[in-house]
Structures are given as C-alpha cells and as structure tokens.
C-alpha cells in the first residue's frame, strides 16, 4: 500500500505536486481564516478594529477583551461576563451526556443481546428521534416540562437533551453491540452472571471506542445547543450559547467586537479541545460501527 503510493508520488511531477500543495494550502487558509480573524481581533483594543483592517495583527496587544468577556461584560442586564453561564452549561452538559450514553448503551445491549418480539420495530421508532427537527417539539416539550415542574431549570434542560440524544446513542451502541460476540453473553450466563452483571462487567468495559464516539457526539451537540437553551432556560439556568447571543446582540451602547470575539472563542473552546484530544478515535469508532453494524 505505502509502496504503491510512493510510486505514484514519484511519477507525479514537480509541477502537479506544487499545484496540489497550493490548492491544499488555499483551502487550509480558507478554513483557518475565520478563527484567525477572531483570535487577532480579540486581542486588539476596540479603536484598532474600528479603524478598519480586520486581518492585520494588533499594533497594541491587550487581554482586556478576554477579561471583560469572562467576568465583566454586560449580559442582558447583569454585568457578569460569561463565566456563570459557562458553569450553567457544564451543569447541563455533564449529566446529559452521561445519562444519555448510559441509557443508549443499555438500549443497545437489550436490543442486540436480549432480543424480544418487535425489537426491530422498537429500534426503528427510537431512531425517529434522530430525524425529528427540534422546532417541532418545542411547544409540546414546554408543556411537558411545565407539568413536570422542570420549566426553566437545568434539570429540565438535561431531560430534554437526554430524550433527544437517546436516538443517536442507541443507534451507536446497538450497531457496536451487534458485532459483539453473543457467545460471550452465553458464557457469562453459564458463569452465573445476571442481566446487569453481564452489561457492566462484560459489555461496557469492552465499549471504549464507541463510548468515545458517543461522548464527542453528545458533548458537541449539547454544548452547542442554542434553541433548547433559549426556549426552556430561565435566567439562572441559561447556558453559555444563549448568554453569548445576549452579549453579542445587546442593542445598547457601543458594539465591543473584541469582547464578542473573545466570548465566542471562550464558548467554543471546550468542544474544540474535546475534538482535538479524541478526534482520531471519533473517526475510527464511527467507521468500526458503520462497517460491522
């Protein structure tokens, strides 16, 4: 394989090689440019931005916009910065990711290893959750949250995200466990392991790759969610995405672009970190699930 690709690269001449690299570099610049603009302008004083030239490096470096975005910027009516809302988001994301993954893994286990009549139909119905647009469920969901007494709370948001995430987590784990040898479950049964022991001792420890995939998937989706946060959260439980919106689209005073850029980077940073750290598992795990499933 590697030999073959070396041979082809030898045959392609210098010119075409240069062409390929030029195109690749162009695309890379194209993709990196927005991030560059955000970074550069978040460390400039506001005057420099207003002076024009968004692409230039700052002549005067400052971290004041970051500090402001973090702790003093005006969000709605309170000058709190984004930090309290970051905490809100964490309180929402961590339980929502954990619960939806655990339940999804459990669903996958039951749907593949404890088959029952109608299990494929049930799985099909669960998959519907992946295809229903968020906007459709806003009003019924609001009613349900109100009846449960969870309206405007972080727990309410966790519930919404768990319900919405279940379709995907079930899909991931079902496909992964479908390729998991059933003989292992039989052997564990003969060894005397019960329903939950088989799940927690045999299947779950062998689920590393798919857990990574699902964590990334769920973490990114829930962290970046704006619609549910804007619709169902109160001022106390408002996630960071909504706070960022309030920061950027406040209609009074001067538009502090440098602070907005800093805030946007702050809000996006955790997902970026998660993706960089475990991105290669993501691709690998997705492929594994896809091929074997």
């Amino acid at each position, binding site marked *: 394989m590697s030999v073959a690709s070396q041979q082809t690269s030898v045959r392609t001449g210098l010119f075409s090689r240069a062409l390929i690299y030029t195109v690749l570099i162009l695309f890379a610049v194209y993709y990196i440019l927005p991030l560059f603009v955000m970074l550069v302008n978040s460390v400039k004083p506001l005057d420099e931005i207003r002076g024009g030239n968004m692409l230039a490096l700052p002549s005067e470096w400052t971290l004041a916009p970051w500090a402001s975005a973090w702790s003093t910027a005006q969000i709605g009516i309170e000058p709190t910065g984004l930090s309290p809302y970051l905490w809100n988001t964490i309180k929402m994301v961590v339980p929502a990711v954990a619960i939806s993954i655990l339940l999804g893994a459990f669903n996958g286990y039951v749907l593949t290893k404890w088959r029952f009549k109608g299990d494929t139909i049930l799985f099909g119905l669960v998959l519907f959750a992946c295809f229903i647009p968020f906007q459709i469920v806003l009003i019924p969901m609001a009613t349900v949250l109100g009846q449960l007494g969870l309206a405007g709370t972080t727990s309410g948001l966790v519930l919404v995200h768990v319900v919405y995430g279940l379709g995907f987590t079930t899909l991931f784990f079902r496909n992964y466990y479908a390729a998991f*040898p059933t*003989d*292992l479950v*039989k*052997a*564990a*049964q*003969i*060894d*005397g*392991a019960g329903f939950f*022991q088989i799940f927690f*001792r*045999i299947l779950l*420890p*062998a689920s590393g790759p798919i857990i990574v995939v699902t964590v990334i998937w769920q973490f990114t989706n829930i962290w970046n969610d704006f619609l549910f946060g804007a619709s169902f959260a109160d001022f106390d439980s408002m996630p960071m995405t909504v706070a960022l919106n309030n920061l950027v689209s406040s209609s009074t005073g001067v538009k502090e672009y440098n602070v907005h850029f800093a805030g946007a980077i702050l809000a996006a940073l955790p997902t970026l970190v998660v993706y960089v750290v475990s991105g290669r598992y993501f691709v690998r795990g997705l492929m594994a699930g896809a091929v074997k499933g």
Partner: protein
Amino acid sequence: MSFLQINNLYKNYGPVEVLKDINIQIEEGGFLVLVGPSGCGKSTLLNTIAGLEDITSGNIMIGGRQVNELHPSQRDIAMVFQSYALYPTMNVAQNIAFGMEMRGVPKPEREEAIQRVAKMLQIEPLLKRKPSQLSGGQRQRVAMGRALVRDPQVFLFDEPLSNLDAKLRVDMRTEIKRLHQNMATTIVYVTHDQIEAMTLATKIAVLKDGVLQQFGTPHEIYNNPANLFVADFMGSPAMNLIPAKLRTDDGGIIEMTRANGDPIRLPVSKMSAPPGAVERDVILGIRPEAITDLSSAQKDNAHQVEVDCLVEVVEPAGADTFVMTSFGGKEVMARMNADFIASAGETVPFAFNMEKAVVFDPSSGVRI
C-alpha cells in the same frame, strides 16, 4: 440409571421443527459426541442441554434432576465455545475466576483454584495476559480452564477444535481424551468431524435434519450403520455403496454388474430373508478395508470371498494403497497392503470380507 438423559425432546423455532423426538442416555463418565453435517441441529441440542435455549417439549435430566426450567448457571454444567468466548477485557486469571466470582467464592479459594487449573493445563505463565495476546491453542486451553475450574457434572464442548490448524487439532484432541480419562466427568461434545467423533466418543449420536439417525458406540456406528446416511457420513474414506440385487434362494447372494456387463456374485451370510420376494434391489455397503488383496486378507475367515476385478486407479498413500474398481456403475474403493503392486488395466484377485458387508433398502435407506 443413566446420568444424562434426554427424553422425547422437541425444539421448534416458530413453525420449523429443528429437533424431533430426540432420545439419548449416557452413563456417568461417558463421552457423548453429537455429530452431523452443518444445520443438523447438533449445536442447538447442546444449547438446550446448557439451558441457553428453551425446549418445546420433552425433558432433560442431569444426575437424576430435571433441569428443563433451570437457568444455565444452576445446571451444574460448563461449556467450551467454538469461538472460545473469552472475556476480552479480563486477563486469563480473571477469565478463569469469573464464574467463581459470580457465585461469591472467597478470593483465597479462587486463587487456589486458578493455580490448580493453570497447572493442569500448563498455562501458568499466561495468567496475567489478555486473551488478545494469546495464540489460538493457548486461548483454547484457557477456555477449557474456565470450564474445568467449575468442576461441573457435565462438560459441554461446542466444536472446540474447529478454529485450530490441523496439527494442533490432533494434539488438542489427544489432550481432551487424556483429560477425560483423568477426570472421568461426563462430556457432551459437538463436532462435524467424524474422525473426532470416532476417536473421542464412548457413545456417538448421529443427527441429520434434527432427527437422531443412530445412537451407539463408535464400533456399532462404524460397523453396523442404521441407514445409508450414517454409513456414508462416518468413516474416511467413505463406505462403498453399490447398487445390487439380493437373491435369497440359495442362502443369500448379492449380485452386481461389472463395468463390462458381466455379473459378479458374492454370498452374504447373516442376511434375514425378506418375506415373500426371492429377489430385490438393495444397496450393498462395504468399507474399503473389507476389500483387500490376498496377502493382507485373513486366510481362515470363512466369509472371505475372492473375486477377480479390473484395477482402474491405484493411489498409494504410504501406509496403504487405495485401489479403485467399479461395480454397478459406482466406483468401489479397496484398501490394499502398502506393498501391493498393480497397474491400471490389470485384473487381479480382490478379497471381499463379506462378514463386514451390510445391505440397505434403496428407497428408504434403512438397513436390512
């Protein structure tokens, strides 16, 4: 009173009957081999004994206790799977001890049992390894260790050797036989390999399409097959099955046609005359080793018949020389002495040991 009893067992998947009226008994310490072509229901039968599959009707008794409704873990059995089914995230010692852990056996006792089994199977240096770091033969040993450590009433083996290469398979076969001799625990063993069945079993059950074809000792199965299927399936090279006519007028004569149309007549002894008819179509079954050259034939055997036959193909195999001729339009294989010399086209005397011959009804396939 037999130790493992299967009585009138039926198993259906919806409208499909996969096991029909199975009756098998095996004494304590016996080695029962379930053999048959793929899809014959032998693995399903093993799974019903293990309790991994429900039965539709009938009952299964282990040691005088009816186990139909019992959970697999309560049947006092241990199973070795074809895929070994080792828990991938646990090391060898944990794999072996998992069953004991589930039953709440205290740790010192578990350690002791692991050491005992590891020693028996010579896997002591592997105890800390993960299954993925083991070779096929080593995994096989660990899988057996996991079964051995339970000290069950019955061992169940589901084609345990089919994932090994040919040489290792023969070694492990001997090892299983030795293990059985040392422990004297009852074993039920599933295989599609009739040589494994012959070498290991004290009793063989031959299955086809969910029906028990014959149940008996390897000797009975080999020498007195109940029907054409068993005759053809057991033994390698396979039994010669030749269309023939049976005449009962003068003491029993089998008549076949040679390639050139001439008849060949062989006397049959222990043949019960069919009622009424003097002549009927039959299929003669005779194993290759019952047809041999004059030098290897038993001289004082009264059932020995010498016939001149045309040699068509000669296949020297080292220990024996296989010689092909044909009767009744079928190729007939004879197993000659290794030093037997003949070339194709020659006509030489063949010695038929008619004591070993069996006769089947051509339409029903049942032995006459």
